[in-house]
């Protein structure tokens, strides 16, 4: 029974564990109830302080974890749902994985909250914005801290709701509302898969608590048991929705309708990585189901490649970043698929740093451009926005995988694992990496270099953002620069900090399927070679981008310009939205009208009314029997009596 995760026996720990999600929740309540009544300064302060408080408490837990014996523990708050053998406590679990996620969510969350205080300062619903952000952090914390699958689902749906509320934050604008609705509904498709997965888990293992489920799975199930494959696939459907994988990715680019800090926090750094968290959390199950993992890898790779190609030709600064996010998420799933769980989480972390940085930088640019998001209207911003430019450059270098920035280490480690698994996948991964570097530098050149292409009006307003916005940029830039050192590759150091820290969470999986965890040590030569290749690919891409957009200063074609068919196909995102519209949305809508008109009003209701009509008609016909002629009545009577007597005689 050693594997069971024990409850925390330290009341201080329990209190802190409870306070971490509670603080943002209190912030949500205060800001939500006091929207428009609280002064903006106070609302911002409460919003930021609550998350910052959680961050400090998380740090405390993190550093106290070793003192606690490096042992995971749970904290039960109360019994939530108890029905017969179904016991769902409202409980939190603190282990290595949740600690890392806690730090990520509250850390990056704090930075983005501070940035928002500047970015949203002109909005009348400032308090509402912060209350939603706090609610998001609360839900995200439930997601990563929950001690069972249903708790995870609570957070999972909660972040979906917040995403809905924040994408449609400016709810006067119908397209934004549509984007919000789309995000929620597509997420719900995934959620259904997740929910069914939970049911199957409960039916199979009789519990939904992580400790119990994983313990049983590691002992009972064989590799590639049908039921484990079913569970993992269902859970993965949930992950596809939340983490925007093919074919459920279409909501994420649309989600850019929300305010930019929201895009940074929810749609780049934290919420969309929930799917990856879930797979790592369920690593025992996934390790037992290599077939699912193969599927995950293929989906991840396909998404990475697919989204990257779309990113090549987008002209909206946030859309480029959105597709880049989808693509990077695909990378992470690719890593999960080859069982490089820690590498995937490593990339989650570094990606959170540099993608949040890029989004916030883009926000700064949009802020300066008075809301303009079209790259064709920008250019030459380097001089007016020096801090933004510099930090943005760091972020771009990081995502492109140039050493020594954070993205290089995580991406390199990830690709090395893929290389071990399959050379073909590695090659495609490299291709994605090439495209990533290309479109990111295209973005950089179009926005910051060359001549300014906006209107005179916009030119007058150009200004560097206030300190409350640039300081978060600087913090994230620093993290993007040094973040990679928490996972140095083996050639540089034997001490992979992140990997070592996370190692215990795979213990059960390792015990269940020892063969899967046999180390595939690459020789140092191969490792150097892989690094060199990926850097070289990135550099070539950068040079290419420089040739086209830096030196030749070519600008993407205006709307309506004739494009080559392939270019047009990619520019229009492969018409996937139109395809979904045609094969899903329109048929459902038609079915709605059709069922109502033809089945409801044309079939079922007429049958019901038919009973009434038949009764009326019957009465109308039969009343003629009532002729009024006394003689016929008597005749009937006599015949009736005779019949009765006769029957009496016969029977």
């Amino acid at each position: 029974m050693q594997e069971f995760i024990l409850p925390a026996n330290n009341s201080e720990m329990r209190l802190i564990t409870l306070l971490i999600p509670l603080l943002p929740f209190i912030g949500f309540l205060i800001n939500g109830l006091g929207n428009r009544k609280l002064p903006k300064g106070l609302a911002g302060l409460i919003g930021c302080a609550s998350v910052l408080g959680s961050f400090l408490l998380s740090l405390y837990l993190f550093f106290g974890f070793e003192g606690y014996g490096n042992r995971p523990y749970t904290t039960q708050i109360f019994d939530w749902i108890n029905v017969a053998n179904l016991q769902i406590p409202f409980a939190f679990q603190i282990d290595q994985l949740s600690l890392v996620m806690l730090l990520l969510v509250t850390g990056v969350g704090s930075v983005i909250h501070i940035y928002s205080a500047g970015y949203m300062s002109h909005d009348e619903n400032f308090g509402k914005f912060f209350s939603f952000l706090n609610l998001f952090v609360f839900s995200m914390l439930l997601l990563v801290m929950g001690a069972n699958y249903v708790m995870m689902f609570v957070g999972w749906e909660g972040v979906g709701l917040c995403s809905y509320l924040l994408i449609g934050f400016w709810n006067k604008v119908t397209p934004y509302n549509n984007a919000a609705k789309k995000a929620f509904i597509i997420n719900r498709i995934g959620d259904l898969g997740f929910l069914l997965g939970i049911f199957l888990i409960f039916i199979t293992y009789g519990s939904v608590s992580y400790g119990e489920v994983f313990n049983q799975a590691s002992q009972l199930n064989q590799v590639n048991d049908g039921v484990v494959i079913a569970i993992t696939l269902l859970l993965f459907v949930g992950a596809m929705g939340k983490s925007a994988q093919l074919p459920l990715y279409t909501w994420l680019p649309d989600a850019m309708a929300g305010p930019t800090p929201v895009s940074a926090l929810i749609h780049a750094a934290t919420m969309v990585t929930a799917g990856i968290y879930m797979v790592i959390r369920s690593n025992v199950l996934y390790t037992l189901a290599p077939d699912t993992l193969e599927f995950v890898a293929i989906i991840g790779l396909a998404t990475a490649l697919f989204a990257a190609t779309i990113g090549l030709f987008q002209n909206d600064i946030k859309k480029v970043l959105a597709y880049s996010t989808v693509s990077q998420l695909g990378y992470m799933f690719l890593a999960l698929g080859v069982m490089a769980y820690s590498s995937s989480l490593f990339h989650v972390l570094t990606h959170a740093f540099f993608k949040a940085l890029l989004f916030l930088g883009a926000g700064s640019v949009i802020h300066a451009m008075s809301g303009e998001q079209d790259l064709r209207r920008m250019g030459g911003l380097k001089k007016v926005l020096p801090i933004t430019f510099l930090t943005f450059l760091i972020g771009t270098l990081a995502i492109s995988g140039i050493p020594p920035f954070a993205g290089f280490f995580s991406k390199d480690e990830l690709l090395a694992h893929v290389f071990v698994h399959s050379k073909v996948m590695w090659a495609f991964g490299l291709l994605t990496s090439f495209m990533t570097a290309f479109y990111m530098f295209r973005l950089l050149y179009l926005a910051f270099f060359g001549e300014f292409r906006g209107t005179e009006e916009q030119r007058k307003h150009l200004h560097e953002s206030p300190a409350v916005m640039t300081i978060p940029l600087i913090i994230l830039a620093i993290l993007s620069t040094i973040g990679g050192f928490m996972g140095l590759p083996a050639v540089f150091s034997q001490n992979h900090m992140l990997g070592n820290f996370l190692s215990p969470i795979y213990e059960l999986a390792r015990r269940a399927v020892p063969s899967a965890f046999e180390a595939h040590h690459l020789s140092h030569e191969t490792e150097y070679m892989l690094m060199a290749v990926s850097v070289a690919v990135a550099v070539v891409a950068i040079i290419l981008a420089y040739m086209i957009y830096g030196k030749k200063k070519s600008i993407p074609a205006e709307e309506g310009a004739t494009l080559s068919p392939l270019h047009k196909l990619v520019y229009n995102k492969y018409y996937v939205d139109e395809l979904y519209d045609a094969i899903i949305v329109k048929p459902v809508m038609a079915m709605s009208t059709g069922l109502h008109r033809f089945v409801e009003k044309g079939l079922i209701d007429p049958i019901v009314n038919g009973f009434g009509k038949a009764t009326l008609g019957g009465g109308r016909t039969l009343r003629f029997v009532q002729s009024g002629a006394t003689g016929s009545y008597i005749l009937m009577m006599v015949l009736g009596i005779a019949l009765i007597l006769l029957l009496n005689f016969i029977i």
Partner: protein
Amino acid sequence: MLTALLILWPAVAALLVLLVKGQGAKKVAFGAALVELLLGIYAWIGFNPADSSAQYLINLPWIASAGIVFKVGMDGISLLLMLLTVFLLPLIILSTFRHNYERPSSFYALILFMQTGLIGVFTALDAFLFYFFWEVALIPIYFIAGLWGGENRIRVTFKFFLYTVFGSLFMLAAFVYLYFQTPGTHTSELSAFYQLVLDAGTQSWLFWFLFIAFAIKMPVFPFHTWQPDTYAEAPAAGTMLLSGIMLKMGIYGVLRWLLPVVPLGVSQWSTVAIVLAIIGIVYGAIIAIRQHDMKRLIAFSSISHVGLIAAGLFTLTEQGLQGVMVQMLSHGINVVGLFFIIDIIQQRTGTREIAAMGGITQKAPFLTVCFMVLMLGAVALPLTNGFVGEFLLLMGVYQYNAWMGAVAGLTIILGAVYMLRMFQRVMFGETNHITDVFTDLTFTEKAVLVPLVIMVFWIGLNPNTFLNISEPAIGQLLNVINR
């Protein structure tokens, strides 16, 4: 005595209300409903949740020569539904304070009279008594909808009345048959029905007789066509009574008078019943998407939600049945709240057309929050009441058959589609000339919605309060079914 008091007090109060002239009747009725609520809470406090049998039992001879008794009592299942009734009724009465109906004393007397019927149905332990209250509850709502309803009220209420009476006659026939099967001098007591040993063939047709009666009341696809029309035509209070409480009569009927009485019939036909229910889930939800009248939209969504409850009923799993209990409460609360909000919007804008509205959220933030919470409850967001119920129900259905569970789960997606669609078009966007003058909630309106919102979170956060009440009774019920 408490049960009898709970049943009789509203009827007595109804007579008192009849004596009051003018709009003062609503206050008297509200007071009477509050007294009833206190009685209900008193019963709750004195209730022993560990006991699975009926408490506050009263057993008086009624038609002694025929073995028919006035036997009422409450186990956990009855108690929860009684609590739902006494909780919702004051709110429903309070929600009508904004209207000045003609002949107010009759209107409020009928509402109170209906409560007698409803509580009688939920507590009766004798078949003919049950039938008696079943029809008693129908009469007031017929008059409420027929006298104070919309334009088409006569035709629609007539259809509703005939349809349900048609169904309940099947039930009566089944009861009479069962009555004559009881040994010795016949009796119509529920416990005697539970002890009957009938062969599978008999149980098979008895199942359908009872099922039709209850399915029309719930309503389950394809017996639902009275429902959207009636909901749309009835006055708001009538719609709330119908959807919030009255349709629970059908579900309760299945739980108490069908499943344990004809278990063999259930095992033969449960698949058919669940399939019908699941068709209803998807069918109702898909039709709801394109409705342009808010009330009709909620009516169709109600068909969908009730379909899930019906599916859970026939799974005969503990999760499923407990889900039924929680979801009955949740659905009652959510749907009453939503219909009330629609009534508020209709009163201020003069229309229920979704397309005619927009931007209300800018004018009425308090309303937005209440609407949002109730909507989230209806789409089963975790930590709201709807999630607990749907989670348990879907788990029950999933245990019965995984594929059915998956199809039933579509409600998760489709529910979000129609609800968000309506919410967006009504609340978001720019205001127009209709919604420009929209005002936020008044005090009485808040007094109705705030308790509902609190209940949404109470059930969502701590469903055990209610699950524990019904757990022994549900366990006992399953024992009887599996006897």
